[in-house]
C-alpha cells in the first residue's frame, strides 16, 4: 500500500494562519488532496491541544482518527471520488528556537512528532516552564535547538525530530543568516537522534544530493500549510505491506526503507530560491550575485541570499546521479489551481478557477492523483483540456521565474498551441 503523508502544518493559533483550519476542515481537505496521514500541527499550543483531545480519538497505533460524529458530518462535504480516503492524524508541532551559539544569533525551526497524548502532555508541561507557548501556535523559545532535542528525547524516545525547511535563509538550520554549516554543528553529539530533514519549498532533493554530508538523512517534504488549500502541496510517499502506524513512520524515517520518495514544488516556485531584494525587484542567480559581490544593484545593500546560493556554498559534489547514489525518487508539481488559472487566464482566487478545480476533483479524484497523471487521468484529456497543461508540466514544458526574498516564484506551463505556432513561424 502507498500512503501520502504531510507531517507539518499549522493551526489557527499560529500567526498568519487561516481561521478555516479546523480539525474537520483539515480532514476534508486531506481527502480532497489525497493525503493519508496528516499532521495535527501546533500540538504544543494548550488550546489547540485541548481541541485535538476533543475532536480526535487515539488509535492504538500512535495515530489519531477524527471523532465518529464529526467524521460523519464532514464526509458529506467530501466528493465520492475521494471517499476512499480516511486520513489519520499524527501529533506534530513546530518550534522556533532563537538563541546564540558560537557568538552568532541562531533562529532554527524544528518539527516534532510524538506518538501519544501522554508524551505530548508532558512535553507541553516542560516547555511551559521554559517559555511562553500560549501566544503562538509555533512558539518562540529562547532555547538551544540541541537542548530542545534533548528534552524531546527525554520526554519520549520514539519522538521524531525534524529540522524544518532546512535551507530558508532566516529561520533554519542551514539558513544563510542565522543557521549553521552542518547538522552536527547545531546538534553536536545529539545529531544521531536526527533521522530526517525537511527540504522545504525552495529546494528539491536533487539540490540536497549535492551535499554529501546529508546522505545519512532521509529527505522529507511537507506542506507547512497555513491554509487548507495548501495542505499536501509537498508530501511524502510511504510504502508498506502493513497498515500505517506511528511506529511504521518512525521506522521508515529512521531507515529509509519504505520511503518511496517525495512530492515537491518546483524549487523555483519557493519563496527563497534565488538571491535578491523584493523591494528593489531584483532577482539574481547565485553566480550573478557573487559577481555583484552580494550587493543589490539598486540599493547597494546586501542581498537576501537564497536557498540555491546556500546549497552551492555547502555543496561538495558537482554532479549527482540519482540511481548511482541510490536516491529516492521525487516528483515536482505545480498546484492544480495554479495550472487551471494559467489555463483560463484568470486569477487563482477567481470563482471560475475554483469551480473548475472542484469539478475536476469531483470527477477524477483527489488533486494529487490528477497531478500524478496516471493512465486513468490521461484518458480524460479530451474531456478536460486543462489536463493538457498537466501533461505539459510532466514533460517539463514550463517556464521558470524563480522566487526570491520572500516572493513566490512563478512557474508557467507553456501553451502547446503557442509553441506550435512559434515553431510554424520559425519554419
Amino acid at each position, binding site marked *: 500500500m502507498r500512503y501520502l503523508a504531510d507531517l507539518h502544518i499549522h493551526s489557527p493559533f499560529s*500567526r*498568519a494562519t487561516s481561521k478555516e483550519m479546523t480539525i474537520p476542515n483539515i480532514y476534508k481537505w486531506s481527502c480532497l488532496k489525497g493525503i493519508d496521514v496528516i499532521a495535527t500541527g501546533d500540538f504544543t499550543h494548550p488550546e489547540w491541544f485541548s481541541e485535538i483531545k476533543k475532536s480526535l480519538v487515539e488509535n492504538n497505533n500512535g495515530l489519531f482518527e477524527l471523532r465518529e460524529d464529526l467524521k460523519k458530518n464532514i464526509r458529506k462535504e467530501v466528493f465520492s471520488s475521494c471517499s476512499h480516503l480516511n486520513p489519520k492524524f499524527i501529533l506534530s508541532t513546530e518550534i*522556533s528556537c*532563537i*538563541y*546564540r551559539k558560537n557568538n*552568532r*544569533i541562531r*533562529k532554527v525551526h524544528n518539527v516534532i512528532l510524538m506518538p501519544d497524548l501522554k508524551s505530548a502532555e508532558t512535553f507541553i*508541561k516542560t516547555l*511551559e*516552564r521554559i*517559555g*511562553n*507557548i*500560549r*501566544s*503562538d501556535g*509555533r*512558539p*518562540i*523559545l*529562547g*532555547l*538551544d535547538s540541541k537542548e530542545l532535542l534533548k528534552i524531546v528525547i527525554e520526554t519520549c524516545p520514539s519522538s521524531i525530530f525534524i529540522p524544518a525547511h532546512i535551507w530558508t*535563509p*532566516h*529561520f533554519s538550520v542551514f539558513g544563510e*543568516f*542565522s543557521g549553521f554549516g552542518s547538522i552536527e554543528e547545531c546538534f553536536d553529539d545529539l545529531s544521531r537522534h536526527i533521522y530526517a530533514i525537511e527540504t522545504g519549498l525552495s529546494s528539491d532533493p536533487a539540490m540536497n544530493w549535492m551535499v554529501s554530508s546529508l546522505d545519512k538523512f532521509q529527505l522529507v517534504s511537507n506542506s507547512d500549510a497555513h491554509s487548507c488549500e495548501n495542505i499536501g502541496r509537498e508530501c511524502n510517499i510511504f510504502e508498506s505491506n502493513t497498515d500505517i502506524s506511528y511506529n511504521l513512520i518512525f521506522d521508515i524515517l529512521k531507515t529509509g526503507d519504505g520511503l518511496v520518495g517525495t512530492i515537491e514544488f518546483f524549487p523555483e516556485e519557493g519563496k527563497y530560491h534565488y538571491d535578491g531584494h523584493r*523591494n*528593489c525587484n531584483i532577482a539574481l542567480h547565485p553566480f550573478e550575485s557573487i559577481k555583484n559581490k552580494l550587493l543589490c544593484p*539598486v*540599493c*547597494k*545593500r546586501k542581498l*537576501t541570499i537564497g536557498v540555491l546560493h546556500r546549497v552551492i556554498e555547502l555543496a561538495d559534489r558537482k554532479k549527482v546521479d540519482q540511481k548511482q547514489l541510490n536516491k529516492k525518487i521525487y516528483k515536482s508539481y505545480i498546484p492544480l489551481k495554479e495550472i487551471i488559472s494559467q489555463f483560463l487566464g484568470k486569477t487563482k482566487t477567481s470563482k471560475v478557477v475554483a469551480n473548475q478545480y472542484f469539478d475536476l476533483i469531483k470527477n477524477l479524484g483527489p488533486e494529487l492523483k490528477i497531478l500524478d497523471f496516471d493512465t486513468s487521468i490521461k484518458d480524460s484529456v479530451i474531456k478536460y483540456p486543462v489536463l493538457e497543461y498537466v501533461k505539459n508540466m510532466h514533460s517539463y514544458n514550463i517556464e521558470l521565474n524563480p522566487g526570491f526574498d*520572500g516572493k513566490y516564484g512563478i512557474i508557467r506551463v507553456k501553451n502547446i498551441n503557442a509553441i506550435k505556432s512559434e515553431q510554424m513561424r520559425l519554419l
Partner: protein
Amino acid sequence: MSFNLSLEQAKIIELPINQHILIQAGPGTGKTTTLVYRLMFLLNSGIPSSQIMVVTFTNRAANELISRLGSIPQSGQNAVLWVGTFHSLSLRLLNDEDIFICDNLLLKNIARYHKLDLTAKEIDRFLSEYSYIKNTSVDSITMDKYSSLTNLLKKYNLYDFDDILYLWISRANEMNKNKFKYILVDEFQDITNLQIKWLNTFVRRYNTFIFAIGDIDQSIYSFRGTTIETFLNFKKIFIPSETYCLYNNYRSSASIVRTSQSLIKNNKKHLDVELKPQKTDKTKIILFHTENDKTEAEYIAFIIENAVAGFNSNIMGIKEYGLDIKEPFSLKDIIILYRYHNMRHPLIKIFKDNGIPYQVIGGSKLANNKYVTRLLSLIRMLISNNKEIQLIEGTFVPTALRAAASTDCLGISALDFINNFVSLLKLDKDNEEVSHTVNLLSFIAGSIKSKGIKAVKELYHKIMLFRSEDELDTRAEAITLSTLHASKGLEYPVVFIVGCNEGFIPSLYSDIEDERRLFYVGITRAKQHLILSLSDYRFYNGKKVKTEISGFIDEINKDYIFQADTSILAMKKSKRRRYKEIQSIKQSQSTLKLMS
C-alpha cells in the same frame, strides 16, 4: 601581568599594597577587571588568600568575581576566597553562632502573639526606619516611638540584617582567628556609615588596608542610608590614603559616553573628571515619543523585532528609524530599564502577546514572597533554639506542613527539603509565579552542599540574603526587564530606558541629584545602542497620568540624539510593509538621480 589591561589600570593594580587606596572609576572603565587583577596582584605578592577579603555589592557580583578570577590562567591557586556582601561576610565571620535573621514576618508574628496594637504596615515602617537609622547614625540609636518593638527584638534575641554587622563589630574584639590584612571593596559609593564602621573595626584592630573602588556618580542608594560624603571623606576616615582615577571608558560608543557626561555634569556633587570614550562609534542615541505607555511598549517591540531581524518573518535594517543594524542581536543582548517595578506591565503584555521570551529582575525580595515566608516560618519552627519562637511560628505554619514537619525531614539535602516543601504544600507548578519562585528556591538550594540542620540553616540565610538583582539568569535567551536600580553593574549591547517623563525619571519622591545619577547609571549600561522613550500619558497605579517630558532629556546634548518617527506605529501591519517599500523606492530613485 599587564595583558588585557590599559596603562592606567596596570598602574593602579601595582600600587604599593600597604596603604589605603580609593579609586574613582567611572562606568565602563574596567572596575571589575581592576579589582580582579588587584586581587591577583596581592596573591602573587605572596599574601595568603586567608588574609584577603573582597566585599561586593551583590551576591551576583561576588559570583562574577569568582568566575572571572577562575578564568585567568595566572590566578593559579584555587584558594578559598572570602568574597561576598557585607551581610554574607558577617554571617560567615560569625559562623558558629546561633543567629537567625529576623524578617518582617517573624516580627509581625511575634507582635501578633503578644497582641501588640500595631498594623503590618507600621511594623514594616519600623524595620525600614530602624535600618535607616542604624546605617546612618554614627553613635547611639533611639527609637522611642517603637519601644515596644525594640523590646521584643531584645527579648527574643533577634537580629535584622544590620544587626549582623553590629554583632560582628561588637564580637570582633573577642575573635582573633580571622586576621584580614587586605580588604577590597567594590561599589564604594553605596557604602553606609555602618559599613564604614565595620571596615574600621578591621583597620583599627589588625592594621588592615582598604582598597576601595567606586564611582561617585553612580551612588543611587541614599534611601538606604548611603551618602556621597562617605566617599568624599575617604581620606579623612582612612589615614594615610591615596586616591586615583580611571577615566577611559571601554564599554560604550562615543555618543553614549558623551551623552552621559552632558547629563551628569549638571550635578553639583560631581567630581570634575570627564570620561573619555575609547570607542569611536558615533551611532546616535534614539529618542522616541509616543502617546501612551501602551504604544511606547509597541514601538519597543517593533524596534526589538528589527534588532533581532524578525521573530516570524525576516525584517531588518530600519535605518530610517535610526537603528542601523549590521549583525542581528540576540535576545540576551537586550535590556529594558524603568524607574518603578510596576512600569513593567505594558511591556510584559506585549511580549506575552507576541510570544517573545523575557525575564524580569528587580522586583520584590524573594524572602517576601508569600510561599517563601511560609517556608521561612517552617524553618524557624524546626530549628530555632528559642522554644517560644518555635511555638509562635508553629501557629502560623499551615497545617499541611506542620503534620509532616517531623525532624526526619532534616537529615536531607537542601534541595530535597525544598522539593518536600513544594509537594507538601501542593503548589501549583503550572502557575507562572509559583514555578518562578520554585525555580529560584531550587537554584539556591542546589548550591548548598551540606546536609541536615546545617543545610537548612544555610538555606534560610541564603534566602534571606537573596536580592532581586541576583535573579538575573545570564544564560537565559531572553530579553531582560529591570528597574534602573537593579541594573547596576550590568552591561548590554542594546539598552532601552522607558518613561523618560517627569515624575518617573526623575521621581518626585527623591533628591534630583540622586535621580540624575540613577538615570546616568541606566545610560551607561549601553554598549552600542541606547533607546530612550517617553509618552504623553501613562497608566500608573491604576490611574491615567498626563506626563511631561523629563528635564533630563533637555540636559542631554542634542547632537547625539536621533528623534525617531513613530508614525509607522499608527499604520496597520500590511500598510507598514507598503510604507517601507515606498521608502526604499524613494531611496533608490534618489540614488538613480545621483547616478545620472
